[in-house]
């Protein structure tokens, strides 16, 4: 069951009464804040229908600006994940190699790109493509955004894959070797498939991070992602704040759907193969730090299992 239930007892009548009290007080506080926000927005004229009409009642705003922007965001995100996944898997496996030099090289590359802000990777990639390649200006922002995202996310996914493999019970590889499978066979037929399945929720969650980070590219490089659309929309309707709110809601809805997909995947995997096969908490993998080996700090059985 969920974490809270082990921390405290099933509430009795008094506890239930107290909870109702807290609920009421908390609800009042929330309502008060909402009311102040409403008044202030009204006072500054941000609730004028003329500002909201183009967003809420004019399909053209959506077909011309918002949806193409969202599509661009999704394209960059999907490309980044699709490229980062195999690259990450290779680096993740390389970090588990028996040869010290392969481990060292792979480790250094991964740690380096995890240490640098994506934004800086994107700016650099953009200049790099400009100076040294013939990538046309219209696609250069896309290239730069995807490159930045791939460099960073491949390093993160390398760690996801590595910790996924390490988190598999040792018995799995021992059993494979005891049957006479070679090291590569064991990795490819036993370890990797299980690690990747166990990691699927983490990978889907990573997509959320990628979609959010795409917005960095819009602001700085002029990639026509969802967020940057507020400039063009407010150039038409002078409604910057309502536009930003609507864009935020689109992000939240899309990312929430993805998060739910990850949760659902996780449950589905759990229900299919109880026990052995669950990766680290997908929530936690998305922001990983260089120099940290998460694979052995996550042991200990979770309460929810």
């Amino acid at each position: 069951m969920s974490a809270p239930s082990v921390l405290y007892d099933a509430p009795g009548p008094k506890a239930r009464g107290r909870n109702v009290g807290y609920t009421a007080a908390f609800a009042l506080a929330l309502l008060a804040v909402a009311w102040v926000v409403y008044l202030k927005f009204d006072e500054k004229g941000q609730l004028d229908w003329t500002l909201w009409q183009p967003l809420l009642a004019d399909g053209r705003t959506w077909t011309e600006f918002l949806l193409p922007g969202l599509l661009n965001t999704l394209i960059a995100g999907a490309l980044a994940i699709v490229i980062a996944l195999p690259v990450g898997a290779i680096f993740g496996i390389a970090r588990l190699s028996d040869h010290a030099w392969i481990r060292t090289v792979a480790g250094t590359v991964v740690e380096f790109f995890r240490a640098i802000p994506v934004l800086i990777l994107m700016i650099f990639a953009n200049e790099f493509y400009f100076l040294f390649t013939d990538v046309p200006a219209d696609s250069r922002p896309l290239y730069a955004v995807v490159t930045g995202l791939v460099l960073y996310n491949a390093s993160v996914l390398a760690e996801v894959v590595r910790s996924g493999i390490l988190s598999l019970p040792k018995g799995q590889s021992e059993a494979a070797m005891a049957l006479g499978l070679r090291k590569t066979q064991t990795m490819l037929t036993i370890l990797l498939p299980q690690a990747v399945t166990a990691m699927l929720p983490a990978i889907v969650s990573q997509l959320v991070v990628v979609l959010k980070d795409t917005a960095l590219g819009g602001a700085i490089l002029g990639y026509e992602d969802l967020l940057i659309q507020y400039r063009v929309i407010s150039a038409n309707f002078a409604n910057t704040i309502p536009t930003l709110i609507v864009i935020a809601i689109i992000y939240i809805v899309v990312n929430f759907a993805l998060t739910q997909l990850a949760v659902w995947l996780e449950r589905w995997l759990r229900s299919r193969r109880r026990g052995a096969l669950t990766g680290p908490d997908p929530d936690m993998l998305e922001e990983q730090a260089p120099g940290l080996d998460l694979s052995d700090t996550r042991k200990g059985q979770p309460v929810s299992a």
Partner: protein
Amino acid sequence: GGAGANADKPLLDRVKESKKLTIGIKYDQPGLGRRTPDGKFQGFDVDVAKYVAKELGVDESAITFKETPSAQRENMIEKGEVDFIVATYSITDARKKKVSFAGPYFIAGQDLLIRAEDNEITGPDSLNGKKLCSVKGSTPAQKIQKDYSHEAQLQEYGGYSECITQLLNGTVDAVTTDDVILAGYATQNSGKFKLVGKPFTEERYGIGLRKDDKAGRDAINKAIQKMIDEGVWKQALEKNVGPSGYKIPAPPEITEK
């Protein structure tokens, strides 16, 4: 687009062959270059672009407009991704090392946009203790701090729309950039803003094209002159930025030859 095998040829040859043009503009500048929800383009820069195109013998329907962010303009011309750019593009010596300019087709000046009821701010030197907004990395705002009002506070954003929001909300006192750009915003938010009307620099907007394409530049210059002479130039300005009360300046003299 204009890229490809064609890209190296002079503008006029390309036009003659393809009867098409790819023109760089801004998408998010009300009054100058703005993409509308209908997928069309509006503004003074757009009107200039269309007029020039017409003079070069290209039908309006054969124009492809392409967004050219400020930092990318020289690159895009050099790589032949646009045929020319009409996007509040100031003629400077630094830029002339990389591209050629036709025009100027307009002479703007840096000015201040303030709230309509504001009577305190009268020019760049009355900004001490005031809050001034502009876009990141733009020299105009820093110029005010340095040359006029040392105690002005500066807010920088990625785009002007954030500045305009703050000006509306009363959390900054003035927005600064070229007067004609400000006039676009004043038109868009009719009645709420006014321009101070004392420009204190000179920004000569040119049409940027490939370096050393003399024939192309002459043809564009001829078109600009014709637009001015026929009065289309003035009409275009009146339509796009006139409603703000912005005083339309005299047409410029074409100097880039």
